[in-house]
């Protein structure tokens, strides 16, 4: 049970009004907007994984009924490339295409049907080229280069000590290869947006994204407008999970609006999202882990390969996170970690909840479970021997902060009845096998050593409310409510008096985006700073009104008090306004960074981490190969919990998304052609796949640098699920799967031959 400290509004289940609005269909997402006179747009896409583009003929398409404009690369005034880190992906391809679904042209017409017909009438003359459909092919000696710099997009080695000697001297060395698959985000709302030019000539874009200010700069860079002439709004978004962190259709929409000078709406179909949307990177991970007789890890050798598709996008960051995760939250004295980001023609991989952490966690936690089995140690006890300790020197040379929560996660898991009595579970039928698994997880909060200076604001209105302004989009996490609680707590007023302005470059400061489990940590930090600045200014004006000095004014629960009297913050804000002084206060927060980034990486290491332990119970049908997840018991350390209901819901969602990743989800490519483009072929967990029991018990923990001690919860739930369930399947069947997903076919083919007579007995 979480203890309530002396807080009025945080650690409380303040209801999220957006939840009811979304569940009842009241919320209007961008794809639900149908402004009068709005043109409808469609995208012309490559059907080939790799081809030379010899020409694009739009003449016939332009003559189609209702067609108002066709945009090709020739219309791009600025940079015909996008990418958060490296600008490799063309906004519109003009000379070559490198994946099925790559955009070449855009059509705007009066109706969706007219736009679709015109898009089909655009003639593209292709010369098909040899394509690369696997990492092995890409690295082969005769492979054609997808881009001129070769098929290795990024390569990094991090080494400490003498891993060869340490492995040679280890009591036990466990060596395995792990493979993980591409996963799709499958948000309820696909990539969508609507844009128009206003009377002042400002380009207004209402679009599903995760970082409005960064999107704005990427748009400006390509369309050649100053950023001040572009407004990006990212709220409300119907799900993102990282898939809308990079540019999707923002620049396309901008190009169409600028060419037609009319309102334009562009919504990807589910099939387009399936083909041209981003995926989680597939990984191959060769692991060699050594341990001493005492159960202390001695060395780890991890060689990681990731399929990033033809263009890097967030690939470097995904690989960095995988490399940082592959030692786990454990002290490893000697290690060699090599990461290679490989180009293929298998569509673009980019950000996805956890970045590379779920992949690397599958490898390292499977290794830990195997080591425990080999040594005859309790799996949680093995972790306890090796976990990070507070303020110890971490693997990457930096001093760790408070890791006490990690130990508490292990303690809670080890005390649970499921773990204590795991040997007592008896399935109902002889062909069903039950098992319980365990895994531990870590996830850095924010961007590691990358600079991160979020800004946010509060505005105190004389009319009697406060507005909290921040740009991290709330695309379902509940940030609108939890940030209102933070501001309410700081001011000592009811959250009902705190309104929120979210993710609109016209109205809110640049807090950065919603990603990397950073939203609460960064926007909360900047909002609390803005509250401090507001209170300081209100004290000054109150002192003037009360004929005293500012330092003689105290503040609590919305009231400014001095010996001579008192006034509330709204009255004080009115006085500020009468004087012509600002009532809006911008606060900032400098995210702590390590001075010395690991050479060759962009963001290793992180300074602040969330942690978790997860227990999972499965029932494996040895006749069908199906894995039924019966229980998921989650023990996370996310720092101070601002809103337990919202945080638990985040955990439920992350665990279910992890369950899908573990046992059913796979974005399949056949000869570089995506085969799983919709919900018919791409399976995601349904209510019937939900465990009988799914529960989260937060450990008590506070992060000194976080708002009221909070860290982040967005990614940590998904990270340990696959490794935990693989361990549970092993416990049930004796077979440990080292490739995801653990689909029925893969499970069945891994089991020892069943004797029909026994199996049906």
């Amino acid at each position, binding site marked *: 049970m979480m203890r309530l400290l002396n807080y009025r509004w945080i650690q409380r289940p303040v209801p999220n009004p957006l939840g009811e609005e979304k569940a009842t269909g009241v919320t209007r997402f961008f794809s639900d907007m149908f402004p009068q006179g709005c043109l409808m747009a469609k995208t012309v896409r490559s059907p080939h994984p790799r081809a030379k583009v010899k020409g694009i003929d739009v003449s016939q398409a332009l003559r189609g009924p209702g067609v108002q404009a066709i945009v090709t690369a020739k219309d791009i005034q600025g940079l015909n490339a996008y990418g958060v880190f*490296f600008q490799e992906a063309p906004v519109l391809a003009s000379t070559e295409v490198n994946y099925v679904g790559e955009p070449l042209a855009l059509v705007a017409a009066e109706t969706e049907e007219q736009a679709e017909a015109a898009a089909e009438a655009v003639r593209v003359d292709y010369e098909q080229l040899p394509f690369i459909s696997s990492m092995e092919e890409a690295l082969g000696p005769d492979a054609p280069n997808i881009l001129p710099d070769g098929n290795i997009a990024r390569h990094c080695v991090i080494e400490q000590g003498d891993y060869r000697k340490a492995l040679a001297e280890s009591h036990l060395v466990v060596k395995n290869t792990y493979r993980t698959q591409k996963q799709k985000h499958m948000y309820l709302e696909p990539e969508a947006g609507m844009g128009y030019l206003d009377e002042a000539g400002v380009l207004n874009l209402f679009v599903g994204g995760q970082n409005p200010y960064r999107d704005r700069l990427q748009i400006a*860079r390509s369309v050649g407008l100053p950023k001040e002439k572009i407004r990006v709004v990212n709220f409300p978004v119907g799900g993102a999970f990282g898939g809308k962190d990079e540019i999707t259709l923002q620049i396309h929409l901008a190009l169409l609006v600028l060419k037609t000078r009319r309102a334009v709406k562009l919504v990807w179909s589910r099939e387009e999202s399936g083909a041209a949307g981003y995926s989680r990177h597939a990984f191959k991970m060769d692991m060699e882990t050594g341990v001493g007789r005492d159960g202390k890890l001695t060395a780890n050798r991890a060689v990681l390969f990731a399929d990033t598709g033809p263009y890097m996008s967030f690939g470097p*960051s995904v690989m960095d996170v995988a490399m940082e995760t592959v030692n786990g939250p454990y002290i490893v004295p000697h290690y060699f970690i090599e990461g290679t980001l490989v180009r293929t023609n298998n569509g673009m991989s980019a950000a996805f909840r956890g970045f590379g952490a779920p992949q690397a966690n599958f490898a390292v936690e499977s290794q830990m479970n195997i080591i425990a089995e080999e040594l005859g140690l309790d799996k949680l006890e093995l972790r306890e021997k090796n976990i990070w300790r507070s303020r110890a020197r971490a693997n990457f040379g930096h001093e760790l902060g408070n890791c006490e929560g990690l130990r508490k996660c292990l303690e809670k898991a080890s005390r649970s009845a499921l773990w204590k009595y795991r040997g007592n579970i008896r399935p109902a039928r002889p062909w069903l096998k039950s098992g319980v698994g365990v895994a531990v997880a870590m996830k850095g909060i924010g*961007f590691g050593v990358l600079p991160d200076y979020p800004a946010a604001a509060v505005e105190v209105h004389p009319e009697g409310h406060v507005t909290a302004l921040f740009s991290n989009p709330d695309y379902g996490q509940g940030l609108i409510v939890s940030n209102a609680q933070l501001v309410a707590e700081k001011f000592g007023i009811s959250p009902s008096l705190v309104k929120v302005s979210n993710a609109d470059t016209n109205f809110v400061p640049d807090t950065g985006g919603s990603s990397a489990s950073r939203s609460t940590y960064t926007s909360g930090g900047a909002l609390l700073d803005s509250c401090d600045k507001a209170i300081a200014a209100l004290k000054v004006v109150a002192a003037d009104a009360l004929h005293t000095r500012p330092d003689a004014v105290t503040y609590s629960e919305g009231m400014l008090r001095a010996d001579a009297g008192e006034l509330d913050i709204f009255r004080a804000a009115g006085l500020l306004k009468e004087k012509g002084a600002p009532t809006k206060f911008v606060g*900032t927060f400098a995210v702590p960074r390590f001075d010395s980034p690991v050479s060759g990486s962009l963001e290793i290491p992180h300074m602040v981490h969330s942690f978790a332990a997860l227990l999972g119970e499965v029932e494996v049908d040895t006749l069908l190969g199906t894995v039924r997840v019966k229980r998921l018991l989650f023990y996370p350390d996310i720092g101070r919990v601002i809103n337990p209901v919202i945080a638990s819901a985040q955990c439920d969602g992350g665990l279910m998304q992890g369950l899908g990743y573990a046992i059913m989800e796979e974005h399949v490519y056949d000869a570089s052609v995506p085969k799983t483009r919709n919900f018919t072929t791409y399976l995601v967990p349904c209510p019937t796949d939900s465990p009988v029991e799914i529960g989260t018990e937060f450990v008590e923990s506070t992060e000194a640098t976080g708002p009221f001690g909070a860290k982040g919860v967005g990614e940590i739930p998904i990270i340990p699920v696959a490794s935990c369930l693989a361990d549970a399947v092993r416990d049930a069947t004796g077979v440990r799967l080292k490739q995801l997903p653990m689909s029925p076919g893969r499970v069945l083919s891994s089991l020892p031959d069943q004797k029909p007579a026994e199996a049906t007995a």
Partner: protein
Amino acid sequence: MISVRVELGGPFRERFGHWHALTLGEGATIGDGLKRIGVNEDLYIVVVRNSERAELSDILKDGDTVVAFPPVGGG
């Protein structure tokens, strides 16, 4: 003359180096300082002065620390 320190972050670090100590004339802007070290990314850049968001056109003061980086992301 004024002395300022400039830190470059993210991919800028690989292209332009990590830290620079600059001496500039009075009235120099952040943009002027960045151009001195080869950073001429007018559009796709975030600048921070003494931990507060700033603009390229802001006038530098002696002792300022500037951090410049493309608007990155990550996990």
